[in-house]
């Protein structure tokens, strides 16, 4: 029963959050935008204390149900793992493995250090919600939009305006590659070991895991009923049930209730933690440390044994670098059950490290630049694609207060990129701000009637702005490049920038002040310009516009 409730809730949350990233019209966000705002990492970044405290309390009471229900990446892994297990009808069993506490702590520390140091891109790489958003935005959304475009084509045929077509384009090669690799790594990990990612790498999982240790409600064994069949352990995607010892590692248990639902004897119940549990856990801690001490002392002598040799092949560095000696512990364990577990756990370490390494490697990866395609339609002149202007300061959306604030709060989940109807937002390629969105105006400009990004942002990186405020928030300044201006290069009348400036900040003035009939060039009123990019988008000079927007480090209200 509990399991079914969990599955239903998870399915609802997962579907809706996925749709948030797919719905380019921004319709769903009015109703379900809060689902993004109750994600832990964005809530922390937004300093949304209410949500953070609520989530921590929920975890303190129920355990990590957040990971099982609210986190889209967690549910995504469950789906992959479920598909795998279904395929071979329950012959793909999970097995208990020891916690890789050192890796969890190390990743968490790195994560926090990166956050404090302002390297948002690193934390964005690890945060589960951001990873999921990235995967959906980069990999699933094109498919969704193509389907939409198919409907749009059909609608056009029948003169219906129910659907309209939307461009599909790779907004950032690097981010696309990262999303792809994240998907592959997570899919492999989930396929092989269920919640490996959540319990070794995910910083949110680590934090909640620590709290979950003290959870009020938890799955408990009824030793009178248990017949030692290990079914609970085989069904535990978190690999946290030690059926032999009748122990559940609450730091890794995601409260999915699978063990309860699968136990034929009704030997596991979800109930209040008792003194005995507390005692047990204390004793276990003691025992563990004692055991570890013993292992440390015996490690050198035992390392030549054939069993540990095989293990060393799989994870040589883990054994050496880890003072706890946990890697050796598995190989030293006498019980056959444990021995059987060893390779499994070795594999997961291996994959997680591979995961970690490949992600790191991506920092230096570069994207391949798409060959630009020009189209020629009979009587239509070729339009050369615009190239991104070289901005000294990035342009970030109104509401983000400035570059620094934005970089510190953005979780790079791509939700704003998904909803931007003007093709302005795209993930940045800068190292410090990798995957965090920035603005550019080749395909459109930041239209005055739109505040979609500020509506959907869950992390407070873009705070909600009113449309009436928007025209007075200066996010950048237009700059004119005389050498590109067609008035100069083609000697034609233009003024398209001035004509489209929503703030009237551009005037056309004769370059030669003495001769009022000389060709007119744009002059920018820097104080009135808000950096919306209308001039840059509408500028006929190609591939580089003759007028472009440079960002403001700190946004200004005019």
């Amino acid at each position, binding site marked *: 029963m509990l399991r079914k409730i969990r599955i239903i809730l998870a399915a609802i949350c997962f579907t809706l959050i996925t749709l948030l990233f797919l719905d380019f019209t921004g319709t769903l966000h009015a109703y379900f935008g809060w689902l993004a705002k109750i994600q832990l990492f964005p809530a922390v970044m937004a300093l949304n204390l209410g949500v953070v405290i609520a989530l921590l309390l929920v975890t303190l009471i129920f355990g990590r149900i957040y990971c099982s229900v609210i986190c889209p990446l967690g549910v995504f892994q469950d789906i992959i793992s479920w598909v795998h297990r279904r395929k071979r009808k329950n012959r793909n069993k999970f097995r208990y493995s020891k916690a890789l506490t050192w890796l969890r702590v190390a990743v968490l520390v790195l994560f926090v250090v990166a956050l404090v140091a302002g390297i948002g891109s690193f934390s964005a790489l690890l945060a589960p919600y951001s990873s999921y958003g990235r995967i959906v935005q980069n990999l699933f959304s094109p498919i969704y939009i193509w389907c939409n475009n198919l409907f749009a084509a059909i609608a*056009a*045929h029948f*003169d219906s*305006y129910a659907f*309209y*077509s939307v461009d599909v384009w790779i907004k950032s090669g690097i981010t696309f590659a990262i999303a792809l690799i994240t998907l592959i790594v997570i899919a492999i990990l989930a396929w092989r070991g269920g919640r490996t990612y959540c319990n070794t790498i995910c910083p949110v999982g680590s934090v909640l895991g620590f709290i979950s240790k003290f959870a009020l409600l938890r799955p408990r064994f009824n030793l009178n009923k248990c017949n030692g069949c290990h079914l609970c352990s085989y069904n535990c995607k978190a690999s946290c049930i030690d059926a032999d010892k009748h122990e559940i590692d609450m730091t890794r248990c995601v409260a999915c209730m699978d063990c309860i639902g699968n136990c034929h004897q009704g030997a596991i119940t979800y109930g209040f933690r008792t003194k005995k549990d507390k005692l047990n856990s204390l004793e276990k801690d003691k025992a563990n440390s004692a055991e570890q001490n013993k292992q440390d002392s015996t490690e050198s002598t035992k390392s030549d044994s054939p069993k540990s040799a095989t293990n060393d092949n799989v994870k040589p560095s883990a054994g050496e670098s880890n003072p706890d000696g946990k890697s050796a512990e598995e190989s030293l364990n006498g019980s056959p059950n444990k021995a059987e577990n060893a390779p499994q756990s070795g594999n997961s370490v291996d994959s997680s490290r591979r995961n970690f390494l490949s992600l790191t490697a991506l920092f230096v990866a570069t994207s391949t630049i798409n060959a630009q395609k020009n*189209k*020629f*339609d*009979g*009587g*239509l*002149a*070729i*339009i050369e694609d615009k190239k991104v202007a070289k901005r000294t300061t990035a342009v970030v959306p109104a509401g983000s207060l400035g570059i620094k604030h934005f970089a510190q709060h953005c979780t790079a989940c791509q939700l704003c990129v998904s909803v931007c109807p003007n093709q302005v937002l795209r993930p940045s390629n800068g190292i410090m701000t990798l995957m965090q969105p920035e603005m550019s105006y080749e*395909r*459109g400009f930041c*239209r*005055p*009637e739109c505040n979609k990004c500020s509506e959907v942002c869950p992390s407070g990186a873009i705070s909600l702005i009113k449309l009436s405020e928007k025209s007075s928030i200066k996010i950048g300044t237009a700059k004119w490049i005389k050498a590109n201006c*067609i008035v100069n290069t*083609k000697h*034609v*009348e*233009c*003024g*398209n920038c001035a*004509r*489209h400036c929503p703030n009237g900040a551009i005037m056309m003035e004769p370059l030669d002040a003495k001769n009022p009939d000389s060709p007119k060039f744009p002059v920018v009123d820097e104080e009135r310009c808000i950096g919306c990019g209308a001039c840059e988008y*509408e500028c*006929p000079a190609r591939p580089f516009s003759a007028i472009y927007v440079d960002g403001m480090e700190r946004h200004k209200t005019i």
Partner: protein
Amino acid sequence: MNRRNFLKVVGAGSAVTAAALAGCNNAASGGSDDVPKGKMTYRTNPKTGEKVSLLGFGFMRLPQKPGKSGGEDADDKVIDQDAVNELVDYAMAHGVTYYDTSPRYCKGQSEHALGIALRKYPRSKYVIATKMSNFDEADQPYEKSVEMYHNSMKELHTDYLDYYLLHAIGDFDGFKARFIDNGILDFLVAERKAGRIKNLGWSFHGTQDFFDYMLTLPIKWDFVQIQLNYHDWDHRTEEVNADYLYGELSKRKIPAVIMEPLLGGALSKLNHSVLTMLKRADAEATPASWAFRFAGSLPDVLTVLSGMTYMEHLKDNIKTYSPLKPLTEAEKAMLEKAADMIDNEPTINCTGCHYCMPCPFGLDIPGIFKHYNSCLTEGNYPDNPDSPDYKKERRAFLIGYDRTVPRLRQADHCVSCHTCEPKCPQHIEIPAKMHEIDSFVEALKRNNA
């Protein structure tokens, strides 16, 4: 002239195509339809005495099909010669004898297609009109223009041309550069003398000064092609009205060949109130048939040109002129009222001739006008935010705009370089109109309450 083009875009596409195919089948099987045979009204050329069908077949736009790569892109389409042949066969069978083309129509493929379609008929059964279309500076040297003339004969498989026109003249400078300075006019007059051109004339898009000047030249013009329809008869504000042009020609006994009898399709795609008025007068008559009857009722009109891509249009036009029922005075008054009503709606009188293209900045000028006009005539014109239909109309206008014209080719990208303006035979102030449409669209986009 491009009524079909209008319809095509406006979306009757599938239905019309299906119907056209059905029509073709009927024609091929010789099945009975109610288009009368052998009843066509003919006019006599006063110079040669030959009879010319009142309906002339214009070859400016022809049925197309996807090209080799099978895409829907405009650059990829080729002329559907089978469909052209079917249309010409049907026209020939129903007494249409006048075929009008140009070396520049259909990206230069029109003459070729017409040549193929007419080849199986005896040369005496039809007359061909083609033109000296040396608009490009590259074509203006004597040799190049003469080459264009000879090439027309080659494409049309003939050693003489029945009607030959100085294509689209209207201002002194252009005329001088294209026909006087290079000696081409002298050449053409000589060719007429030699009998290789039976009738020499010109098609006119321009100022009254220039028109008068042409008629005072010491050259006898055998015919003149003018834009005439019940709207342009006396409702043109910027241009010379057709009643003047026709009157001057009639005075001199010069036969008039009529182009734009439908004002670029505008007179076949009428707004609701005008359509209702015409339908009340005759429920079965198509709007186009009224326009053709107007042009045909003028006695000194030699032939009325119509570009017909769909079999329905061809049949309808043949029916209108088999035989012609001249307009009554009451009917003329009604059409004048219709012209008034048309004037009161803000459609742009673009005929979709594409002479303005290519725009150096990539705009699809005719596409933009077409979308704008079709929204106006279909009532999808969201001009009143308080109207209950505003939201629906706004959506239809904006989505339809993106569908018809790619974003980078829309009106907002007009820089007013004015390259297009002198090329427009309708003398539309294209940049000004572009900015108007752009402001309208911009206001529409912002008002998304």
